[in-house]
């Protein structure tokens, strides 16, 4: 048995810490830091608007190009996110206001009304969750070779609404419509008037399309348990909507940018980390600021996502930042396999690509 009492540990730690470092060396360190900070400040002033983490900025580029400013068209339902079939749903437009804290699933009628004006603000490029069924097929047109080709139609009514393939993103699972069609709820993006893009089916937990974060984490773990992945694969799971608090994490120093393949994984490297925390956690910032490990029901998302989806409009350059966690509904794609050597601070319950924050828009 190895003897390891407190004085022994203390003595060795103090030996390692060199209790009397050379003052000249310490002064040199301070000077080196001063020089680097001066250089950093000059670089910032030469490139207006550059974010603090320049090496990561390049990595954000792909995400910035892909993660369009989309949000979910939601209509308040008094019963919260509980899904109901179309026949029993009340028209959302009868609700007096758009409550961003209430998850909304569009009925067929609501979807038709929204998509009809899909080429106007605020509907164009918005993402909706709709409780509709999709069937295969659709009229192929002569322009199909050069435009988006329909892959399906709404099963009931609205023959004029085309369902097309998702926009190109090689890391995101494309929504598919098989021979038997797809049952709602589904996640759609409005491309233009009467044209929607199928992002995917919306998985449900206990009848709800908006997953509590712990349930989502468990679902991701179940993927790992039940599927045999190649250890070096980079695999993205299907889309989920989660209800969570988005918060900015601690920076992971990034003195040298390491290339990541695929580039998407670079967004989880060094930089300004971001997290999704369960809504039941009163103040997740106290945990993120002080704890070394992450709770097992938290989700690591790409660096800089708080700036993208959590920053208030008033927090522009020069304004006093408000770093409060942002509760909301988020569209995420779980990473079910990735290279942990490149994924920094990924000791959370799960890792996911944060795709959009979902906010309500009015029903016309």
């Amino acid at each position, binding site marked *: 048995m190895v003897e390891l009492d407190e004085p022994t540990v203390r003595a*060795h730690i103090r030996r390692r*810490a060199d209790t009397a470092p050379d003052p000249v060396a310490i002064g040199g360190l301070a000077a080196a830091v001063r020089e680097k900070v001066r250089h950093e400040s000059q670089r910032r002033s030469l490139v207006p608007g550059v974010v603090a983490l320049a090496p990561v900025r390049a990595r954000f580029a792909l995400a910035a190009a892909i993660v369009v400013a989309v949000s979910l068209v939601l209509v308040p339902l008094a019963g919260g996110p509980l899904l109901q079939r179309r026949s029993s749903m009340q028209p959302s437009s009868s609700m007096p206001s758009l409550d961003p804290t209430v998850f909304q699933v569009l009925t067929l009628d609501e979807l038709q009304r929204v998509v009809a004006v899909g080429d106007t603000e605020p509907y164009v490029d918005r993402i909706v969750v709709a409780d509709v069924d999709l069937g295969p097929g659709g009229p192929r047109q002569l322009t199909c070779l050069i435009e988006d080709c329909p892959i399906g139609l709404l099963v009931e009514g609205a023959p004029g609404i085309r369902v097309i393939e998702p926009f190109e993103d090689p890391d995101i699972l494309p929504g598919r419509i098989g021979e038997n069609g797809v049952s709602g709820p589904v996640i759609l993006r409005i491309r233009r008037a009467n044209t929607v893009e199928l992002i995917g089916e919306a998985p449900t937990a206990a009848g709800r399309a908006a997953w509590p974060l712990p349930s989502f984490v468990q679902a991701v773990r179940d993927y790992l348990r039940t599927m045999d992945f190649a250890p070096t694969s980079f695999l993205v799971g299907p889309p989920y909507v989660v209800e969570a608090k988005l918060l900015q994490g601690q920076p992971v120093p990034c003195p*040298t940018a390491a290339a990541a393949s695929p580039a998407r994984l670079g967004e989880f490297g060094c930089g300004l980390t971001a997290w999704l925390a369960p809504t039941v956690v009163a103040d997740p*910032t106290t945990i993120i600021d002080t704890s070394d490990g992450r709770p097992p029901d938290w989700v690591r998302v790409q660096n800089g996502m708080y700036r993208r989806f959590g920053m208030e409009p008033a927090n522009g350059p020069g304004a006093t*930042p408000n770093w409060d966690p942002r509760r909301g509904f988020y569209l995420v794609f779980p990473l079910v396999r990735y290279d942990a050597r490149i994924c920094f601070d990924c000791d959370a319950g799960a890792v996911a690509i944060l795709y959009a924050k979902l906010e309500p828009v009015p029903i016309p």
Partner: protein
Amino acid sequence: MNRELVEAARRGDRDAFDALVRQEVAGVYRTTLAILGNAADAEEATQDAFVSAWRNLRSLRDTSRFDAWLGRIVVNSSRMTLRRRRGVREISMNADQLPSQASRPVGTSDDPEATAVGADAFDRAFERLPIEDRHLLTVTYAEDRSLDDVGRLLGIPIGTVKSRLSRARAALARALEGQA
């Protein structure tokens, strides 16, 4: 920690940040030295930590928690340094080849019980611990801090300090036993 300096640095005052660096650099260097075990890595991790802190100071929500915030950055910069080194440098298990600083005998310690475990064995075991555990042990024992102080420094309750410290020491003991 001087809160006024932190506030000023957060507003972009480089002189204030420089003063903060002068105030904290020795402590950060000693911490990284204990964590990483050699001077070159410690210098690199220390510089990286402060540059990262400067880049991200605006994101610090509560300036009263600067010490805990900086501590997290130090842990991350140590981890980064270790990862970079891991690919190019193997830590020798031969006592003669260990860095001189890390191989210093412990017999001159104020505490004679420190000789119960040899320096080389301790270092090998210590370097098998996660960076977070090394950081906790270092901030606790390098300066003889009370658990209250450690809790304040890391921004965690004293109960959490005790439990984490207990786990870290147990892991250290297991690592030592693995060599026995």
